[in-house]
């Protein structure tokens, strides 16, 4: 039985896939690893996967999340939602198009910690977690993510 992942529907149900990376509406997943080295946390880009294949093999969970807030990107045409899952280290960013309310992409990490604030500056989203870290996501190429402090 084939599974058709629906990112918009999951988000409306307050759920997201535990991708540890970026999930797109077409079912692509780009893995993003958070590597700790000498007190520094760095981002490492991983492989690209198909979420429908992962779901059919039951290799990924879709879990409930809690939105902590949202910010209007104004001229960028997006709304950025941010929040947390229910295991201690979870955090997520969801980017919604203001034009049709569809989801452009969603980032979910099990070790980012909850994102408590976000802002849109030009083509970038800056998200702040409860560890005091500032994460930068490129709106149009979200796999280009970095921890900037």
């Amino acid at each position, binding site marked *: 039985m084939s599974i058709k992942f629906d990112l918009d529907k999951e988000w409306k149900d307050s759920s997201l896939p535990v991708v540890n990376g970026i999930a797109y509406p077409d079912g692509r997943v780009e893995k993003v690893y958070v590597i*700790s080295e000498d007190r520094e946390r760095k981002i490492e880009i991983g492989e690209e996967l198909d979420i429908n294949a992962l779901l059919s093999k039951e290799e990924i969970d879709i879990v409930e999340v809690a939105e902590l807030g949202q910010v209007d990107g104004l001229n960028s045409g997006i709304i950025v939602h941010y929040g947390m899952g*229910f295991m*201690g280290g979870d955090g997520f960013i969801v980017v919604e198009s203001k034009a049709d309310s569809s989801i452009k992409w969603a980032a979910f990490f*099990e070790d980012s910690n909850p994102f408590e604030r976000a802002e849109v500056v030009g083509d970038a989203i800056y998200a702040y977690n409860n560890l005091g870290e500032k994460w930068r996501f490129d709106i149009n190429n979200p796999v280009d993510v970095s921890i900037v402090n």
Partner: protein
Amino acid sequence: MIASFLIKDTYSGDPSDPLSLNLYVYCFNNPITYYDPSGHWPQWLDNIGNTIRDGTIDLIQSFWNDPEETLNTANDYVSLAAFVTGVDDTQTYQDMKYIGVRVEGGLVNATNVTKGTIKLAETTGEVGANFVAHTIVSTGEAFGIKGNQKFIQAVEEKRKEILTGGKALPKAIGQGIVDDFKTTINPSKAYDYFLNPNASLHDVAEYQMSAINTAMIAVPTAQGATAVVKYGVRAIEKATAILADRFGTQAAFAGGYGNVSWSAVDRAMASGIENTGVSFAKSLQGGSSARTFGTLKPNEINFSQRTVSGTVLQYTQDMASGIWDWSRSGPLRVMKRDGQWVSYDNRRLMAAQNAGLESVPVQFVNPAALHPELPMTWEQAFLKRFFDKRNIRIGGAIPSSGLNAQPNILPARR
């Protein structure tokens, strides 16, 4: 030579005191030590009575002002007396001390609840005014006119209007609430419990319940807004945690106390509103209260999830080397479930266990209180985690009392 009266005393004497039966004797034949202006009663007895009376009043006042310090001082005297008389290591003394320590916790708790409740009543009116003013200021900020002089003046006028019995909080309502507090909860009623030797801790808990019920009615009535309920619950949660600390360290409740079950203690803690007035005001005005409320041994706490991320390794190193800053990370938030403490903060708990820490700071969270970040109670937040699909996938939902076994560490690349 001791003189005697020519006319017999009008007081007929006490059969148990032979000297008083001699109706021609003044002051038990000891006029230097005693004097008797009425001719019937030695002043020294009055002095003793007055001393006892004044001492009792002082004791009550001292207890009211600082119950913990008063009890600690009393404990020091009792301990010293026990040491001097050599009974300090007897089982009877230990038993009495054990019961006494637990009762003390209840007394301290009840005193502080009462004080906090009175404080709440006193501050309710001002808090309401400040809350409305705060809301207006926030609105002004949103519209970019926060610094506008006319706007500032309008806010202040609104605040004064409310304070003096304006539209948002009619004075009669505010006064009614204060009166209700004074009737329901007052020091003299509390003293009845504190000083009544037959009052059990259960009685004290029940007294607190009545205090809480009044507060729970009064607070939303006074503020009349859902925001107030939200902030109020947070304030009560903070206050409850303080009470939990008092119960935990003062009363211990380590063993089963005859009259008070854990559920009763939990109810009392859940209802605690010590310093609610202060916390409530701080919450409304964006202030903060202390969040470190006690300590537990790490191995006394269970886990609430089956996996943690690898950052736990760095946490462990930092704790083992003594550079972990608990004031920055905050305490572990723990909740009592089926008689067992369960942590919401699993990485820090695991790190503390592996680093060999003897104790960790904890915040005892009230299951019924709102989680500070989530739109749900602590109980609901714990249950969401217990039944998270990731826990179910690798071993099943977390048992109600948590897991004693440490979580697995997730690989970084997964």
